């Protein structure tokens, strides 16, 4: 946190709420967390962020034994905790059912993320998870899809079936070039390797197969970085995994052979220790040397937490920017929110986590995204044409002017019809 204190006053305001989040969530995953030294005003300020990022129940757990629990913000967090408890119970039933369905079809699945990490928390309501990620051996994928066909409408919960582990952010290397059916062969090899290291854990009466501890910690670290670390919950996951390592945990297996990926994993572990006070004995020498996070990283993550903005939910750049062309401040804010993603950019460009400036990676990522501009432009034009078309249809069949007017106003304010004359 020293690095953060050295930053200028102006930039400090950019991660003020992120710092409060960090202070509240430090150690919040433990069975008996310490009482936080946070004022009610600060809690009120960050409660919406906690709710947006799925960390509300952890916030509640941390304040349960403090006076903050009775505050309105505390009650809001308590409500979230209740919801997550029930949600977890429903999910657990579903997971057990999905496993029984697949096993009846002769398929042995592996559950990743979600419950696989939630089970490590001291209370089932602390770690919410939305979708159920199930991986099956690539050659059994079609059969698994068939077996789970009956679950297509599972009351708002999503079963995400994966063919092998290829789509998960494991990065244990890429398929060798020149191989016949290289991609398939690689996916199957990866499956066999990770399946062999997977473990069975109890969920009620069912035994659920999850990844081995090493692969799991690795996936948590890489998923966090790849997603830009905008959710503090993901760093709590890393902290929980770190504090519940098995006695025979194999660090070499977790870090892997690729020095760059090992650096990423080590860096994330360093972050969990720096921002959340995660404790872990037996950190190997190789990891200790690498886990010192670069100076820019903690402030960058606190800025992400300060915004708590899901990058997936950010509107495509082109329409968002065009909509703000007349307001310079908002226009530059739109640019900044897309630019200020140094963690995601570094991973997207497969860069090193060192103290070098991040802008080359950020620029590189921006250029990668320019390929999406024609698609965004085409989609905007199609949407506008559809709007014009439906307006024309309504106009032609003689719908009253009262109803037609708002639609016309909306169309006139569209970016491509703006000719300087505003309504």
């Amino acid at each position, binding site marked *: 946190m020293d690095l953060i204190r050295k930053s200028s006053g102006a930039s400090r305001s950019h991660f003020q709420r992120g710092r409060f989040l960090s202070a509240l969530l430090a150690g919040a995953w433990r069975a008996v967390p310490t009482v936080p030294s946070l004022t009610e005003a600060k809690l009120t300020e960050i409660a919406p962020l906690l709710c947006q990022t799925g960390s509300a129940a952890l916030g509640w757990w941390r304040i349960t034994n403090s006076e903050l629990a009775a505050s309105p913000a505390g009650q809001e967090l308590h409500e979230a905790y*209740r919801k*997550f408890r*029930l949600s977890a119970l429903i999910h657990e039933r579903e997971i057990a059912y999905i496993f029984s369905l697949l096993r009846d079809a002769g398929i042995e699945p592996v559950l990743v993320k979600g419950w696989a990490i939630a089970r490590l928390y001291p209370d089932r309501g602390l770690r919410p998870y*939305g979708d159920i990620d199930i991986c099956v051996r690539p050659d059994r994928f079609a059969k698994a899809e068939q077996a789970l066909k009956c679950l297509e409408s599972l009351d*708002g919960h*999503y079963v*995400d079936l994966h063919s092998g582990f290829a789509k998960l952010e494991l990065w244990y290397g890429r398929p060798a070039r020149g191989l016949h059916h290289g991609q398939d062969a690689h996916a199957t090899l990866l499956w066999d390797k990770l399946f062999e290291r997977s473990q069975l854990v109890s969920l009620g009466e069912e035994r659920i197969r999850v990844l081995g501890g090493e692969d799991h910690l690795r996936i948590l670290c890489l998923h966090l970085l790849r997603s830009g670390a905008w*959710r503090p919950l993901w760093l709590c996951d890393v902290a929980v995994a770190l504090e519940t390592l098995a006695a025979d945990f194999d660090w070499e297996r977790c870090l892997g052979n690729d020095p760059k990926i090992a650096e990423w994993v080590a860096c994330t572990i360093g972050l969990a220790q720096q921002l959340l006070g995660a404790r872990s004995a037996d950190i190997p020498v190789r990891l200790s040397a690498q886990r010192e996070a670069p100076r820019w990283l903690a402030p960058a993550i606190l800025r992400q937490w300060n915004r708590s903005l*899901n990058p997936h939910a950010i509107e495509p750049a082109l329409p968002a920017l065009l909509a703000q062309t007349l307001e310079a401040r908002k226009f530059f804010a739109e640019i900044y929110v897309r630019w200020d993603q140094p963690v995601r950019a570094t991973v997207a460009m497969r860069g090193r986590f060192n103290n070098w400036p991040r802008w080359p990676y950020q620029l590189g990522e921006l250029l990668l995204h320019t390929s999406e501009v024609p698609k965004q432009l085409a989609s905007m034009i199609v949407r506008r044409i559809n709007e014009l078309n439906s307006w024309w249809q309504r106009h032609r069949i003689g719908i009253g002017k009262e109803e037609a007017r708002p639609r016309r106003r909306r169309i006139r304010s569209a970016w491509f019809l703006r000719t300087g004359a505003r309504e």
Partner: protein
Amino acid sequence: MKRTTASHLPKMRKQNLIVDELPDEVLVYDLDRHKAHCLNHTAALVWRRCDGKTGPKEIARRVQSELDQPFNEDLVWLALRQLNKIHLLAEPIVLPSQLAGMSRRRMIRALGIAATVPLVISIVAPTAEAAATCIPHNGTCPAGGLPCCAPFNCDLSKNQCK
């Protein structure tokens, strides 16, 4: 007035409910109606004693001995009224005439009780969106402002991420 007949003996509903017991409260999820409820400790005690054989007077006596605090039949009726409303009883119960048309707030005021009031609150049903980052392929959209996972887009004609 509070005399009960055998057909009016309250019985807790057990089917299609997910019940989660916490130290101070009980969370209930109704799988039929997709509604979630939170019963405070007292309401949960009353609910658990609704076995279809015990009348409100006896329930009050048992709850009182468990709580070690005064707990009368009126409070049992207050709890039953709320449990009945959220369908946590196997069969609807007939309330005493003077309590039937009363709101919960008025009932509490009329009973003049502050402590050990059985309370049931409904909570917004848990949703996957609260925790999901994006909606996966073939997932229903739009859902709570959540986007489809890349590279999929929401197909509004089918309301699915395609």
